[in-house]
C-alpha cells in the first residue's frame, strides 16, 4: 500500500491546518465586523450572509466532490446556466415547467456523463476536457437561446417557495445548500462509494491495480457534480426569477474553485471534505458581506479579497511546507 499510517497522519495534519487557518481568519473577521459594524451581528444579517453564499456553496460542494477524486469540473457554471435556461426555454413551448425542469436535469446528467466518459475513458486530462466542454455547452446555449437572460414562468408555486420560502426561519436556499452539503458529507464519509472516491483521488493507479472500478467512479462524480450545478441554478432562478447565462463569463467558476482550495481540499485529490468547503464558503461570505456594508468600491473589494485569500494560502504554505510527502504527482 502506498500510504503508510505515518504519511496518512501527516496528510490529515496538513488538511486540518489549512482549514484551521481559514476558520481562524473567518472568526477574526467576524469579531472585527461585529464590533465595528452596526447590525452585522443581527440575526437578519447572519441569514443574509448564508443566503448570499448558498449558490456559491452549493457549487463548491459539487466541485469539492470532483476535486477529492483528483478531478476538476470547470463545466459547472456552464452546465448550471445552460441547464436551467434549457428548462425555461422548453417551458415556453407550453410544456409544464416542472416537467421542463426534469428534462433539464436529464440533459445536465447527460452532459455530466459525457464529461465523465471523456475524463475516465478517453483519459483527457480533466482540466482540458472540462474547459473545452464548458465552452461547447455555453456556446450551444448561446446559439439556441436568443437572449442571455431567461425568465421562469411567474406562477410556479414550488419555485417561488425555493426563492422566498423558509423552514423554521431559515431561507429555502440555505436549507437546500445545507441539505446538499449534508448528503455529500454523509456520502463521502459513510458510504463505500465515498471511500472509493478518496482512494481513486489519492492514487488512481493503485486504486485501479487493486481492482477498484475507478472509471465508473469518475463518471459518476461528473454526473453528480452536474446535477448539483443544476440544483444551484434552480436556487438562483427561484431567488431572482430568472437565469442570466452571462454568468458563464463571470469569475464565478474561479470563486468556486477558490472556495474549495481555500477550505483545504488539495487539487491533488484524496483529501478534505465537505467541512473544508463550508469553511471556505463562510470566509468568502463574511468578507463580501462586511465589505458591502462598508460600501467599499469594487476595486478595493477585489484587492482586499485577493490579499486575504492569498494570505490564507501563504500562512498555510509556511505552516505546512510542501515536501515529497505532502505533494503528489498530479498536483497543480
Amino acid at each position: 500500500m502506498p500510504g503508510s499510517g505515518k504519511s496518512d497522519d501527516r496528510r490529515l495534519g496538513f488538511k486540518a491546518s489549512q482549514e484551521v487557518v481559514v476558520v481562524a481568519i473567518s472568526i477574526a473577521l467576524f469579531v472585527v465586523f461585529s464590533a465595528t459594524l452596526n447590525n452585522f451581528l443581527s440575526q437578519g444579517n447572519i441569514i443574509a450572509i448564508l443566503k448570499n453564499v448558498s449558490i456559491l456553496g452549493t457549487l463548491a460542494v459539487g466541485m469539492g466532490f470532483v476535486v477529492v477524486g483528483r478531478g476538476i469540473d470547470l463545466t459547472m457554471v456552464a452546465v448550471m446556466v445552460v441547464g436551467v435556461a434549457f428548462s425555461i426555454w422548453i417551458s415556453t413551448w407550453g410544456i409544464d415547467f416542472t416537467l421542463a425542469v426534469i428534462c433539464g436535469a436529464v440533459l445536465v446528467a447527460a452532459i455530466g456523463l459525457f464529461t465523465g466518459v471523456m475524463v475516465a475513458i478517453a483519459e483527457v486530462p480533466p482540466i482540458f476536457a472540462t474547459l473545452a466542454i464548458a465552452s461547447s455547452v455555453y456556446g450551444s446555449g448561446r446559439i439556441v437561446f436568443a437572449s442571455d437572460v431567461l425568465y421562469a414562468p411567474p406562477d410556479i408555486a414550488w419555485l417561488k417557495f425555493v426563492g422566498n420560502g423558509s423552514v423554521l426561519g431559515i431561507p429555502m436556499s440555505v436549507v437546500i445548500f445545507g441539505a446538499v452539503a449534508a448528503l455529500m458529507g454523509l456520502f463521502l464519509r459513510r458510504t463505500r462509494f465515498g471511500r472509493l472516491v478518496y482512494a481513486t483521488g489519492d492514487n488512481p493507479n493503485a486504486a485501479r491495480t487493486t481492482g477498484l472500478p475507478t472509471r465508473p467512479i469518475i463518471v459518476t462524480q461528473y454526473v453528480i457534480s452536474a446535477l448539483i450545478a443544476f440544483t444551484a441554478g434552480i436556487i438562483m432562478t427561484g431567488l431572482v426569477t430568472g437565469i442570466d447565462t452571462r454568468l458563464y463569463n463571470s469569475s464565478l467558476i474561479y470563486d468556486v474553485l477558490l472556495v474549495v482550495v481555500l477550505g483545504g481540499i488539495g487539487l491533488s485529490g484524496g483529501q478534505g471534505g465537505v467541512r473544508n468547503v463550508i469553511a471556505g464558503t463562510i470566509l468568502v461570505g463574511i468578507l463580501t458581506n462586511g465589505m458591502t456594508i462598508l460600501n467599499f468600491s469594487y476595486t478595493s473589494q477585489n484587492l482586499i479579497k485577493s490579499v486575504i485569500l492569498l494570505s490564507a494560502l501563504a500562512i498555510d504554505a509556511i505552516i505546512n511546507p510542501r515536501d515529497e510527502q505532502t505533494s503528489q504527482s498530479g498536483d497543480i
Partner: protein
Amino acid sequence: MKIFKKCLLAGLGALALLGAAQVASAQETDQVGRAAYIDGVKGKKVIFVPISQGMDLNQAWVMVWQRHAARYGFTLEVRDPNGDTNAGIRAMQGAIAEKPDLIIVQNPDVQTYARLLKQAQAAGIKVLQVNMQSATQTDSYVGNDWIEMGRLEMGELAKHCTGPNAVSHKVVWLAGVQTGAANIYMRTGIDEVLKANPELQLVSDQPADYISEKARQITETVLQQHPDLCGIMGIWDNAEVGAGAAVAAAGKQDQVTIVTNGAGAATGCESIKNGLLDVIFNFNAPTQGEIAAQQISELLQHPDRKAGSEKTIFFGPITRVDKTNATGRNCWKPEDIK
C-alpha cells in the same frame, strides 16, 4: 361667385394631377434622389462590434439594421465578442484591417477602444458609436443621454424620498460596470440631483455588474443595514429584478421604490407587473435602432466626407414607464420588430 372660383380651381388641379400621372407612367420617373441614395449605400460594407449580442437592446438594433441592409443592398456583419474585452479588441483590429465603409461600435468602457477608434478614423473608416460611448468622439453617436438618465432616475427617487412623508432619505445606487460610459455619465447626473437635494442620503454605491444575483445580494445586505431604505436606482432592468427580489423577500415592496432603465423589452414590463420594479426609464431600443439606421444611411451616402470631419450626436427618446403605461409600444417583443 366664390364657389364657382373654387370649383374651377379644383377642376384645374385635378386635370393637372391627371396630366402629371400620365407623364409619370410614360417616363417611369424615379422618386427624387432615390437612385443616388441607392447608389450610395448599395454594396457598402458595415461591421458591427457589440458588447454582446445576447442583450435585448442589441437584438433589437440588429433586427432593424438587417432589415434596412437587406432592403437597400448593403451588408451588415456582426462580430460578437460576447462580453470579452480582449475578443472585442481583436474584433475591432480585424474590422479596421478589412477597411469597411462603416464600423458600428458599442463600447464596453470609455478607454478600451479609444485608440482603435482613432486608428479607424485615421484609416478613413467612418465610425458610428451606439449607446455606449468611448473617450474618443467619432463621426456619430446614437444612444442615451446618460447624464439625463442619471438625473431622471435619481430625480424619481428624490420625489419619493424627500419631504415629510418619506419613509427615510436613504437611497442606493446599484451601478453596472464602473468604467462603462453609462456608469460614468449617469453618476454625473446623480451627483447633480444629490447636490440639489442635500437631505438625500446615498447609503450604498456598489456595482452589480449587470448581474441580477449580484444585485440581489447587495440589496439583501443593504436592507439589513438600512431597514428603512426608501429607494434603489439601477442601470438595467434585467439586473435590477434581483434587487426587486430582495426587496420582495423582505416584504418591503410598498416601502422601497426601485427605479432603473432598460431597452423597453416586454420582460421589463413583466417585472413591473410582478411588482419587482416600480419605474423603468425606457430608451426604446427599436427606435434607437431606427435612428442609428438613419445615421448609417447618412454616413454611407457621403463617401466624399472625410471620416471624422463632422461629429454629430443623436440622443434617443426616453419614456418613463410604470404600472400605468407598461403596455403596447413600451413593451416590445423581438417578434414585433420583424
